[in-house]
Structures are given as structure tokens and as C-alpha cells.
């Protein structure tokens, strides 16, 4: 049986891994390690983004509350706001809302106008739509503008400008500065398109 003996000898001689096997194994290991590192990095990044979004939401909430208390406050507020370990940029836009008349009301208005009563501001709304957007600033890994991928939160609130008694402190601000009311009424008649202040 010399042939069989030679085969056994060959098998015994073939110990260890071939070069190809080693490369393949390394490649597989590297792939697994890369996938795991990527997953961990993704999870950490998501966590960081979530924290940043929560921070942005709270900053937006505070900005709206400040605006409700005294509309002049935000005009002087820095465009970068520190909160926690991060800084955030913000922008605010205000739009005066108009009311869309129903068919019946529209006919009534038409009748009024035909009778010579020119009340163009009949449906002038006292409502204002205030929108605040807050995003992570470039100092904290965000951007100067709310680009895609930047943690950003937008809060919108309808404000009734004639509700002076929204907050006792707000009433106090108005009592101390009655010009606010006059200015607001003037602005309301002049500007129904909206104003904004941008932090970028």
C-alpha cells in the first residue's frame, strides 16, 4: 500500500492555514469589527443628536415664553444661546394671520361694500403665528444654518395679541411700557405679511 502511505504523508504535511485562508479570515474579522464599530458610532451619534434636539426644544420653548412675556426681548437677544454644554442658533418669524370668510360672511361683506361701507379690516385677525427654529450651532458640531443633518427643532404657536392678561408679569410689562400696545396696533395695521429675525 505505498500509495495510501504517500497520501497520509501528504495530509500530515499540510498543517496550518494557507495564505488565502489567513487573508480571508482577517478580512472577515475586519468586516465584523468595522460593522460593530460603525453600529456603536451610529448609536452614539444618535444619542448625541437626540440630546441636541432635546436641548434645542427647550431653548425654543424658552424663546417663545420670552417672546410672550415681552416682544422686545428677542430683538436684543444674542443669536447664539448657550444651553447645557452646547450652544444653539435660533431664528424667529412672525406672521399676522387673516381670517378666510365663509361664503355667507363674504356675501355679507359684499353687501356692506356695495352700500358704501368700506371696512377692509373687517376680518383683520388679532392672531399671530410665531415660529421659532433652534438648531445646534457650528461651535457644538452643528451648522450656521439649519442644514440637513443638523439637529433642529421648530416650535410654532398662535398668539392672540389682544390677550393682555395672558400672564400677570406680561400685563405688568405692558403697564410699565404702554407704547408696546400702540406699536403693536400700528404694526398690525401696517404689516400683515410677517417679520422675522434670523440667527444665521
Amino acid at each position, binding site marked *: 500500500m505505498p500509495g495510501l502511505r504517500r497520501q497520509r504523508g501528504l495530509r500530515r504535511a499540510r498543517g496550518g492555514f494557507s495564505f488565502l485562508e489567513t487573508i480571508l479570515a482577517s478580512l472577515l474579522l475586519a468586516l465584523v469589527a468595522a460593522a460593530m464599530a460603525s453600529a456603536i458610532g451610529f448609536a452614539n451619534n444618535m444619542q448625541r443628536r437626540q440630546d441636541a434636539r432635546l436641548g434645542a426644544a*427647550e431653548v425654543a420653548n424658552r424663546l417663545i415664553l420670552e417672546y410672550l*412675556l415681552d416682544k422686545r426681548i428677542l430683538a436684543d437677544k444674542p443669536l447664539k444661546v448657550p444651553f447645557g454644554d452646547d450652544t444653539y442658533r435660533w431664528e424667529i418669524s412672525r406672521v399676522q394671520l387673516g381670517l378666510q370668510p365663509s361664503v355667507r360672511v363674504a356675501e355679507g361683506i359684499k353687501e356692506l361694500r356695495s352700500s358704501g361701507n368700506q371696512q377692509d379690516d373687517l376680518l383683520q385677525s388679532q392672531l399671530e403665528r410665531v415660529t421659532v427654529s433652534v438648531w445646534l450651532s457650528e461651535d457644538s458640531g452643528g451648522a450656521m444654518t439649519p442644514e440637513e443633518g443638523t439637529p433642529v427643532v421648530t416650535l410654532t404657536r398662535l398668539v392672540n395679541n389682544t390677550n393682555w392678561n395672558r400672564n*400677570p408679569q406680561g400685563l405688568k410689562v405692558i403697564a410699565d411700557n404702554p407704547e408696546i400696545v400702540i406699536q403693536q396696533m400700528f404694526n398690525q395695521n401696517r404689516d400683515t405679511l410677517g417679520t422675522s429675525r434670523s440667527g444665521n
Partner: protein
Amino acid sequence: MRRRGFTLLEILLAAALGSLVLVAAMGVLFAISRADQALQTRVAASNETARVQRTMQRTFTTLLMATGSIPDEPEAEDDAVDDDDIEDSDDGSLAAVGSRDGDAETDDDEADESDEGEGDDELPPEPADFRLLIASDPREWPSELAMASELPMWTGPWPPQRLTVVLSSEPIPQPLQRDLLAEAEEILEDAEDDDGDEERSLWVDELISLADWDSDDLDGIRGSFMVEPDVPTDTIGQDAGWSLWWVPIEAEPVRVASGIVGLTWAVFIDGEFTREYAASAAEELPAFALTELTFIDGRELSYVYEIGWTVGIEPEPPAAPEGEEGEGDDGDESGDDGGVLDAEAGAELLQQAAGGRE
């Protein structure tokens, strides 16, 4: 044909390889288990955070205010109490907060003067007169130095603050309250098994036994948010810190959050935040309220809430059953003998019994 067995070397190698595989498998299992536990802790922490946020939001938007200011009207230019005034007072007590209404200094001499000189018809405001009260917890606390060795770590203002409010509805939704009470009972059971924590469990025990009656028929609720040292437990998965409790006069206390190491309440009034404040009528309300919490695991919460209120009469607690009248006069109520209180005794008990130290 004789069958060849394994050599010693082969067996040893196989055993070593098998052990390695087992160890690796166990390691992976433990890692998964740890990750699962960490995830659960994180979810619990996230839920707790949301619970605190919701609870404080409900609290500050459902204030039930009085129709007018308390009789002792504040002097116009001194609306807010300076922190210095509070720190200078002997006990950092509610009297200092009452001092917003004209007697800001709380030195003994001045207190005596006001007690003796003003006559009986002008009593200083009591804590129970206020509908929103943020002040240092008036219980006896160890000094800041002693606190470090006697109590869990605390990084907030010392002594801890207490927030007392009258609300038009429960700050914690009923289903959530039931869950939290069940959790508290579980913690108490754990604590009873541990002899070393008897004293702490007593604190919580007294909180739980503060009152027994059903408050369903009441429209408004008076209660306090206050902190107590945690009962150490494994169920929360974190070291002992402090717990935030909602302690209504007419119902069972509910633990809102645990593992706290710092808590600050403040209100924004006259352009600045102040940590000591008292209000009775709606026109005295601040612009907004700030809640800051630091947890032992490093979480830091900072929320500002809009103030919302209605005006109404604070409901009286249920009357005492016959034969138990006058019980509130001796000041010895522990709250576990029927829990029937009048408004003043209730406020007093709220101050005393929650600590369980007197």
C-alpha cells in the same frame, strides 16, 4: 481492528478549546445581559425624565389661585426676597418667605417685635395662606458639613427646597400614580428586609401613611413637592440619592423621581429668577417657573414652564369624625391614626410628618 483512542494532548487541547469557546460564549451572554440592563436603566431614566417633565408642567399650569392677595400686603419695591435674607434667617424657614410681604428680615428681634407690637388682628401670613410657595424645606436639617457624612450626596441648594402649591387637578395622572405607589411599596418591602436602612424606610413609611382618605370629591389639591433620601434598592439600578415626592394633604404621597442629587426651583419675576417666592392671588404669579434636576447618573434636566392658573376657593379637607375633634391642637399627629386634618393642621403635618423626625 484495534481502534485508536485520543492522546492526552488531544484531550487537553480539546478541553482547552472547549473552555475557550465556553468562556467566549459566556462573555457574550454577560455582555448582552449587561447591555440589556443598561438599556433598561436608560429607558427607566428616560421615562423618569418624561414623568418629571409632565408632572411639573401639570403643576405649573394648573395652579388654583385665590381671589385676592393675603391681607398683609407687600411693600411695593420689595417684591422678591433676596437669597441673602433667606440665608441670614436662623432656620431658612417659611417665615422668610412670608417676609416677602413687608417683613423681609427674619431676625429674631424683628420677629418678636412684629409678634408683640401688631396686635392680634394683623397676624403674619401663614404658609397655608399661600397658593404657590417656593422656600427652603423648614424641617431640621444637619449642617452642610454634617450632611456630607449623614446623607446621600447633594449638590443643590442646602437645605433642599420645597414647592407647595394648590392645584385645580392632580399633578400626576391617576394610572401613573398607581404604578408609582406600587413601586414605592415594593421599595418599602425591600427596605424592610435590610436592617441597616430602617431609619430611611421610616421616612418613606411616614410619607406613605400621611393620609388615608379619598380625595375624589375635592376640586382642588394642596400639596408639596419635597425631597427625601432614597431607600437604597436594586430595583432602580442606581445608587442611593434622593427622591422627589409629591405629598398631597388629602391623599397618599407619590414618588415622582429617584436618584436625585440636586434640585432647584425658581420663578422668573421682575426680570430675574428667584429661588424664594410666595404668591396667593393670580396677580402675584411669576412669568414662568424653572425646574433644574441633577441625577446621580449624571443626567441634568432644566425646564422652564409657562404659568397657567384658575381662580377659585381652596376646598376644605373633610371634617373630622365626631370624637376626634381637637386632635389637631396638640401637634402630635403622625397621620397614621385616621389622617383627619383641618387646613392648618394639614399644612403643619405636611411640614413635620414627611420627615418623620419630630
